[in-house]
């Protein structure tokens, strides 16, 4: 799953560089310029990718730890 997620994120970053719509002034539904509509879709796609990441690639055991207290931290003791 991790490999799929890396591919999805890389795909998002590549798709973000949409030089193919750079000078396109078509109005989608007569309201949103193509360059803006496309990036609204990128925002929605990003949210979907993060939903997939949180559902299928959430780090296992991340909440399993013995908690130390703030006062017991070495904090890189001098």
């Amino acid at each position, binding site marked *: 799953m991790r490999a799929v997620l890396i591919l999805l994120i890389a795909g998002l970053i590549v798709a973000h560089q949409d030089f193919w719509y750079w000078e396109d002034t078509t109005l989608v539904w*007569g*309201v949103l310029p193509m360059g803006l509509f496309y990036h609204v879709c*990128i*925002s929605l796609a990003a949210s979907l990718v993060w939903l997939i*990441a949180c559902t299928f690639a959430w780090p296992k055991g991340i909440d399993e730890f013995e*908690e130390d207290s703030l006062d017991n931290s070495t*904090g*890189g003791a001098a």
Partner: protein
Amino acid sequence: MNGLIAAINDGQIRFLIILGYLCLLLVLGFFASRLFRGTKKDYLLASHSIGPFLLLMSLFGTTMTAFALVGSSGEAFRQGIGVYGMLASSSGIIHSLCFFLIGVKIYRFGRKYGYATQIQFFRDRLDSDLVGLLLFPVLVGLLIPYLLIGVMASGNVIEVMTAGAFPNIEMLQVFRPGTEEIDAAKSGAIPHDIGSLIVCGVVLIYVFFGGMRGTAWANAFQTTVFMILGVVAFVLLANKLGKGDTFFESLQNVTRSVDVDRLSRVDIPQTKFFTYMFIPLSVAMFPHLFQHWLTAKSAKTFKVPVIFHPIFILIVWLPCVLIGVWGTTLKLPPTFNANNILPYMVNKEIGTVMSGFLAAGILAAIMSSLDSQFLCIGSIFTNDIVIHYLGKDRFSDRSQIWIARIFVVIIVGVTYYLSTLGYASVFSMAVWSFSGFAGLFPIVFAALYWKRLSAAGAVSGILATFGSWYYLFRKSGFGEDADFVIALLGDDFPVMPVVPIFVCSLLAMVITTFLTSPPKDETVNRFFDSRQVG
């Protein structure tokens, strides 16, 4: 009642709305302080009690500044719709990436080892006091321009929005340059120094008494306010400017009237667009976000912010970018300040009361970042200087809370003083501040995912970031020249300065790490266990 309203001028109406909003914040801070448990952990980290919704709102509110409302519309007015892709959709990808890859792991180590600041984490992870000593001035130094932007912007918003409120007060009268003629449009306003002081005072009060819990609550409230106001302004302006029978028809009418150049990205170089994507990496190293991450109830709490952050950016930025390009259809003088396009349009097209609420919304966006930054610097001074060097056994938990509070007061005072000195180019310094933080990204990423990273490698990375940042910042005339170009194969490519800073940091860190001894197994094993979390 009508007579009373008639007796109040437009500036006074806006002033009263702003004042009412600030009072609401104080009330919220008061309620948050009633829940204060009296411990240092509660004051700095809200006792790790923040749930998914509050974490989403506080992280979003902290990353969005005045730029989200005023700057987005202003930049769209100047450069067209490309601003959304350059700053908003890229942040939707990168911010969540940082929360997912960096935030969740930092949270785990923060809970496990009891960190309250980034410097504590780096000292421990690299087993080096020097790393902490170097990071301290770099982080505080990069955060100060960011703080100044907020403080100065809030003063300017109050000054612009209260113009004409008190026309009879002599000391508030403004004269046209070179004449003794009173400029009625600018006179009678709350001066920006006083406006900044009021905002600093309000933020100080709720941070001082409410600590991190008060800050998180205030952030959630303020984020709700500026999100709603942005959308309301958008709907009202579309109806007013589009004059259609339905909202959708109005939207079509007003967008069709915009010049085609503003509907494409012809004015934005592609290399600059691409390299802007490095800027949001800065969130991985913002010290105030680090502290917010540690307030989460559990690691699972991060899921909601990770998923919804891109959509929240969309909700705020899309309306503002469209308003900005609609503004280009208005007949405005060439000297018109683009950053004023949103308040100008709201005031002119919708009216006084709505522009008063918009002012409150802009202040909300500013203050939702300022509060976390003030608290975070107070926390850094307390934990990384006083407690670290004088010894934690010398101070009781209660004393440490008071030390943090005293530092918050000092930081607010110093920031306010610096804001009164009037650095004209402070707005252009925002991108430099973010570039510096983004240059430190390779170090936090390597600290979490690269066992081999040595303390010397991290030190080299920090020094390379600072050195390249200072060199380029100086070369730009300390932020005056915004254009940075890389010459390659006979062509000039406009890029953001963050790229060379990032590359210098990465190379210095990797090369030095391979040239120096690996870290001790004992240290590495504390952060990379056999389960390979993350």
